[in-house]
């Protein structure tokens, strides 16, 4: 069992001294701090706008990541170029961090004619294969064993690829979680399983998911490593996940890492960019300002740029028309079979 990584990038009290790998992860966290901040800010701006758009009925769905950006951004940034990230629905932001254009995310959210999913999938499911992001499922937990299978395939093919799956605390109750961690243990796959524990699944508290104190300790049942960090501390979060990636890449097997997050119960009257001490933006801003890498003015510029980018992308996505009805019948199979050609004629005749 890997020792727990504490809430801050400094070694936790009483923890054993960090090994070389962890020291490296810690160093890299500090290097990644500024881009991490910008990505977190970007997701914050996007999610805030999406929350509004959903309230207005302009999009059918949105999974807010406000306050939980550290877990998501750190997973995407801690992955190496060749590694794959398997997000759940609430981790749509991982694709943006890895380079998916905002327009692609928004076209998908609006399910318009430019949507890579062709209006097939609801918002927050942007295909992003070229950014090595696996497809999210609407079924909680379903992607976790898939991430393990992917890493397992890489191992069989002797390729140096780590997979990172990100999922909520609720997902740990699923059979898919059990299968995923168990197979990762048995076949010693290069898997980092990131549980974003926000203490709730829907409206139910975590006491309705598990009797254990932590999610991390579940690793014991599968013979894989575990770690636990505060998702309010972006650098610690990056460090723990990055250490898991490096470790997995060395053939040392899987890590289950619990990132404890505290999204605000309500955004009513909250300063969206400094919500509370739990807000991972707050802590990271402090570090960056202390190190002279960020100041209020620079952040203001950043925010303005991001807001402008998001506004423009939303406007563009809203202007695009709906997909052509014939696209409904594409991608069920690699080629459209006869029975779907016949069914397509039923909607075509209407057009």
């Amino acid at each position: 069992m890997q020792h727990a990584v504490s809430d801050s990038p400094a070694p936790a009290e009483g923890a054993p001294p960090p090994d070389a790998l962890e020291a490296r992860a810690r160093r890299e966290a500090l290097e990644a701090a500024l881009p991490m901040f910008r990505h977190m800010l970007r997701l914050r701006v996007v999610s805030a706008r999406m929350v509004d758009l959903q309230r207005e009925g302009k999009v059918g769905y949105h999974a807010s990541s406000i306050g939980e950006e550290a877990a998501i951004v750190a997973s995407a940034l801690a992955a190496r170029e060749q590694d794959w990230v398997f997000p759940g629905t609430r981790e749509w932001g991982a694709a943006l961090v890895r380079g998916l254009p905002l327009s692609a995310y928004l076209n998908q959210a609006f399910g318009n004619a430019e949507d890579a999913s062709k209006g097939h999938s609801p918002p927050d499911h942007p295909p992003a294969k070229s950014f090595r992001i696996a497809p999210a499922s609407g079924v909680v937990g379903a992607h976790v064993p898939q991430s393990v299978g992917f890493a397992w395939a890489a191992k069989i093919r002797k390729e140096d690829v780590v997979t990172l799956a990100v999922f909520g605390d609720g997902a740990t109750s699923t059979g898919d979680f059990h299968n995923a961690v168990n197979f990762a243990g048995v076949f010693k796959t290069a898997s980092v399983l990131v549980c974003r524990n926000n203490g709730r699944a829907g409206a139910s508290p975590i006491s309705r998911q598990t009797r254990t104190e932590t999610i991390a300790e579940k690793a014991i049942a599968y013979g894989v490593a575990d770690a636990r960090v505060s998702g309010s501390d972006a650098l610690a979060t990056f460090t723990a996940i990055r250490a898991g990636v490096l470790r997995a890449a060395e053939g040392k097997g899987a890590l289950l890492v619990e990132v404890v997050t505290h999204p605000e119960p309500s955004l009513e009257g909250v300063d969206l960019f400094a919500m509370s001490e739990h807000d991972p933006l707050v802590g990271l801003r402090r570090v960056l300002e202390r190190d002279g890498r960020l100041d209020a003015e620079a952040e203001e510029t950043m925010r303005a740029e991001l807001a402008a980018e998001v506004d423009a992308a939303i406007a563009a996505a809203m202007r695009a028309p709906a997909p052509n009805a014939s696209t409904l019948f594409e991608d069920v199979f690699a080629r459209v079979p006869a029975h779907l050609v016949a069914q397509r004629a039923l909607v075509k005749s209407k057009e």
Partner: protein
Amino acid sequence: MPSMNMVQAINDALRTSMRQDDRVVVMGEDVGRVGGVFRVTQGLWDEFGDDRVIDTPLSEGGILGTAIGMALYGMVPVPEIQFADFIFPGYDQIVSELAKMRWRSGGEYSAKMVVRTPVGGGIRGGLYHSQSPESLFIHVAGLKVVCPSNPRDAKGLLLASIRDPDPVLFFEPKRIYRAAKGEVPEGDYVEELGRAAIVREAESGKPSVTILAWGAMLYEAFAAADQAAEKGISCEIVDLRTLWPLDVETIAKSVKKTGRVVVVHEAPKTCGFGAELVALVNEHCFLHLEAPPVRVTGFDTPFPYTLEMEYLPLAHRILPAIVETARY
């Protein structure tokens, strides 16, 4: 009689049965304090407490597996699956265990429960919040399957389902949860399972077509029938209500009268329940058929996000089928 929507009627049925019979327990993801994502179980937790209205872990297999154990004990669990789309992680417990419990033990054990779950599209939910998986349960011997189309039936059929000795899948058409309103008898009120209803009769002397429908699509059948009437075609509409065991008699009587059938359902066409209805109509009314039965259904694709109104078998797709069938 008070007027209610579907949500209120189902809530009323649950409350009524829980007051009558303390073996009835409601369980599922967020069914307790918050009363479920559609608020169908609202207020039950306040009245019946944590032991009878239970927020469970996020595991459909766990919910159904433990509910079977409860049922073996003698309770009557009414698990809610948040969306029918999420029933599949628990599918094995339903098809291998629940459906076969009585049979495999020669009747010694039984596991009586009612699995409630919202089905159907039209709420912009996309592929994992819109499906209608009825045929995947009807194929499995040992399950009863119910799908009401209005608040009165919702209450009466749910109370009947809870009292019935066999396991029941109770599919709630979520698109009309709040849109369908009507008078609902107070207190104890049961609608017998296994009875279809002729909700509109064909006018004699006119070319006529039988429409078989249920749930939210019944309203589309009505709309299409209204339009068909303008073209001189009279429709007899059968609301199946209980999908299995099926009221073949009522269906056969209607088809023998009209000689023409249109079946409507949201689920994909292939191996949907419509196929079974067509096959049964062949068995029971072959010599009366004046036209091939037509299926107007969801397409053989997953359920789309953007184009769900193109996907659903709405009135504009039912109407041409009626006309084609009538003029065959």
